[in-house]
């Protein structure tokens, strides 16, 4: 069901794996759902010029970002037959190996969830003002840019 209220998508720090498990559990009462598709973004320990990324520190233009997440959400409900959709994004430091983005879509049938999830994730990457500071193990940093 589409929800007109602008939600706060942001969570402080990493998104815990048990939170994802619990979120799945909560959908087991929705027995019209036949297929879930979940995307998780995980911070990579990339090695750049011999230095290893230890964490990404996320900041955002929060009001605009939440408005954009809301637009993406509305567009996805418009385009695809979804039963529900949830988006969570981290703010602050997230260590390598931890989850920084959790997108969850559910539908009666499977074909639609693949298309919907990819649409949502690509829109988030392109349109939402979130910024990432890659912090190396020696505490130097560089700014992440989505490709």
């Amino acid at each position, binding site marked *: 069901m589409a929800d007109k209220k602008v939600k706060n998508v942001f969570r402080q720090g990493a998104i815990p794996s048990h939170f994802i498990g619990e979120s799945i559990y909560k959908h087991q009462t929705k027995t019209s759902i036949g297929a879930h598709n979940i995307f998780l973004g995980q911070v990579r320990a990339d090695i750049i010029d011999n230095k290893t990324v230890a964490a990404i520190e996320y900041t955002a233009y929060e009001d605009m970002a939440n408005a954009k997440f809301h637009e993406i959400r509305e567009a996805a409900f418009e385009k695809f037959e979804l039963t529900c959709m949830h988006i969570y994004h981290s703010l602050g430091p997230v260590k390598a190996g931890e989850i920084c983005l959790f997108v969850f879509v559910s539908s009666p049938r499977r074909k639609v969830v693949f298309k919907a999830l990819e649409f949502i*994730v690509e829109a988030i990457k392109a349109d939402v003002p979130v910024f990432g500071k890659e912090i190396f193990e020696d505490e130097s940093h560089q700014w992440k840019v989505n490709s």
Partner: protein
Amino acid sequence: MLITIKYFGQIVEATQKEEESLEFSGTLVSELMEQLYKKYASLERKDFKVAQNQELVSLETQVSGKEIALLPPFAGG
């Protein structure tokens, strides 16, 4: 006109602040940027987009809003 300007991500490294109020007497976003480039020498080398009242605008847009934001490349997810 008094405008609130917000800076994000690596833009803050040029401005050394996240927000400020500026008196602006021009018309276009491009004029406001010229004013900021004079104030912050390293800003001109940064890659960013401009949002006015939370919507992306071009340099030719009229400054009308209360809130201008300088947004470096997005890195969500």
